[in-house]
């Protein structure tokens, strides 16, 4: 029998010509100047020492890395991972149904709903975070609303608590979960779902054995886009956590701007990047396995 995909007469993919390089040049330049070179500087600094006024002395040592594994910082790393993990789980739980619904909607409705997902980006991120402060603070909109409704619940003391931080993180990153899952759901062939029903799968089993595995690439991409930046987020923890629940992003920011200990900040940053890379590799493995 003939092969499923006949070989197409295409040029050699492994060696792009000068045209391909010309097209890629802006991106290569951008990555080099803003990612690769700063990365190298960070890596070099992480093995240096600081002087009294906050300068960097090029004196090779592992001291910074020894400090990273101090229990104080390990706890902060663990907390950051915990909050980011919780944020990711909540984003999947809230975002999946929304993304799935948008992906299965008619084309016209789909575009309108996608616009709604994007609307928050029209306002500055900081302004939106301050809006949350207005909602959550002691005499804020949430508590006023609950008091007015006379439901007998509240007032809640939410602002400057870990709950507020997670609310803020979920709010900030939800669109980054919705969009990739939407991408997977939209591509999902309806006849596959019908085939599952036809073969005796009720809605729940069709969902768990066909729909979820086939939208897994979207979930993996969304997790990467939410989990990784959420670990490093410092603005929300500062504003909504009242700097009482520092995350790793806050510590790094402090080392560079307040403590003026650049080498230690760099070491934290390098460990942080290694964590990113590890998460990425794990998700990539899982992603490629579920779509193979």
């Amino acid at each position, binding site marked *: 029998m003939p*092969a499923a995909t006949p070989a197409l007469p295409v040029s050699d993919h492994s060696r792009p010509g000068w045209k391909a390089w010309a097209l890629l040049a802006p991106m290569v330049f951008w990555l080099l100047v803003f990612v690769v070179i700063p990365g190298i500087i960070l890596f070099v600094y992480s093995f240096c020492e600081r002087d009294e006024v906050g300068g960097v002395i090029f004196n090779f040592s592992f001291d910074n890395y020894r400090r990273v594994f101090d229990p104080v910082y390990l706890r902060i790393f663990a907390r950051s991972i915990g909050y980011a993990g919780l944020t990711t789980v909540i984003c999947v739980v809230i975002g999946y149904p929304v993304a799935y619904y948008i992906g299965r909607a008619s084309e016209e409705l789909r575009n309108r709903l996608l616009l709604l997902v994007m609307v928050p980006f029209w306002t500055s991120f900081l302004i939106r975070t301050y809006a949350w402060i207005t909602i959550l603070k002691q005499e804020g909109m949430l508590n006023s609303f609950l008091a007015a409704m006379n439901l007998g619940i509240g007032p809640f003391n939410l602002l400057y608590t870990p709950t507020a931080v997670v609310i803020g993180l979920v709010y900030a990153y939800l669109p980054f979960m919705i969009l990739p899952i939407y991408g997977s759901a939209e591509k999902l062939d309806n*006849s*596959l779902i019908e*085939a599952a*029903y*036809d*073969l005796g799968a009720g809605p729940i089993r069709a969902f768990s054995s*066909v729909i979820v595995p086939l939208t897994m690439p979207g979930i993996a991409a969304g997790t990467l886009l939410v989990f990784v930046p959420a670990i490093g987020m410092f603005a929300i923890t500062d504003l909504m956590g009242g700097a009482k629940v520092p995350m790793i992003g806050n510590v790094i920011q402090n080392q560079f701007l307040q403590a003026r200990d650049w080498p230690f900040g760099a070491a934290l940053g390098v460990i942080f990047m290694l964590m990113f890379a590890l998460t990425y590799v794990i998700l990539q493995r899982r992603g490629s396995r579920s779509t193979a």
Partner: protein
Amino acid sequence: MIEIRGVTKRFGAFTAVDNVSLTVNAGEFITLLGPSGCGKTTLLRLLAGFETPDEGAVLLDGVDVSHEPPYRRSVNQVFQSYALFPHMTVKDNVGFGLRMQNVPTAEAEGRIRDALATVSLAEQADKLPHQMSGGQRQRVALARALVCRPKVLLLDEPLSALDAKLRHGMQLELKHLQRKLGLTFVFVTHDQEEALTMSDRIAIINKGKIEQLGDATEIYHRPRTPFAADFIGQANLLAATIILRKGATATVRLESGLELVVACTDLPASATKALVSIRPEKIHIGRVPAVAENVFQAKIEEEIFQGATDQLRLITDQGTKLHALVANESATQVAFHEGDRVYCSLHLDDIVIVQAE
């Protein structure tokens, strides 16, 4: 087995299936044949449970299943796009239905093996769908449906994505399988040749209604409507006036003045006008007149070589244009050429009245 009782399905203002009634017998291969958009796929989806009827009922073994969801109906479908689960191996695809029915693993293993052997794919059990050819995927889809032992197997244009040669092979194989296993098949296609090759009965569907229901020979030789005559095979459809009746025959006059004797068993007594259908291959062409009720002379306007046959465009002496097909029996045979004058002979049974008023 299956009974469709006065089923109507509308999508907004569009009526996809219009008051259709049809009974499918156990062990029968029935084909729903029609052009795209005629409602044949909607009818199949009503049987599968993907659509619910707006009016009427679908009965399976005497039980009304009109509002049962697809996962509670013992019918299975082979999808046009095969709809194989891309994240599962062939074996897991075939076993999906059994897992959903909680069939014990040991029994399921055996049934999966048998099903794959039936479609000659025993060796490919651990492959993923994308590693297989179109024809193989088609067999996996078939095995996945058959392994559930459905009361009725629904097939939605399952061969349309295959190339012509493979398609022809699969037609015979499907027919053979259906006979061997004694299954009931409801097959949807727009390909009239496929329908004629495989079916016990064919339902010709047009604009949401069944135009004609009958076995392949009946559908081909005795079309009952102009649509049926035109859609199945080729037909010369000619308007005529009924000028004389004598027992089971009538004489009709075509617009050109050519008079033909035709068989008419169920022609209404009041009818004066008719539309007659003549299959191109039934016009016997010769240098000398043959023995038949209708013999007339014509000139060959155009001759098109088609391999096994020659397609001829004729114009009779009276001016009626006709298509005819003659077999290319031998390469050395004296063929017909453009401009030749020939005799056309037609039996009265080969002219069918498809419409009368």
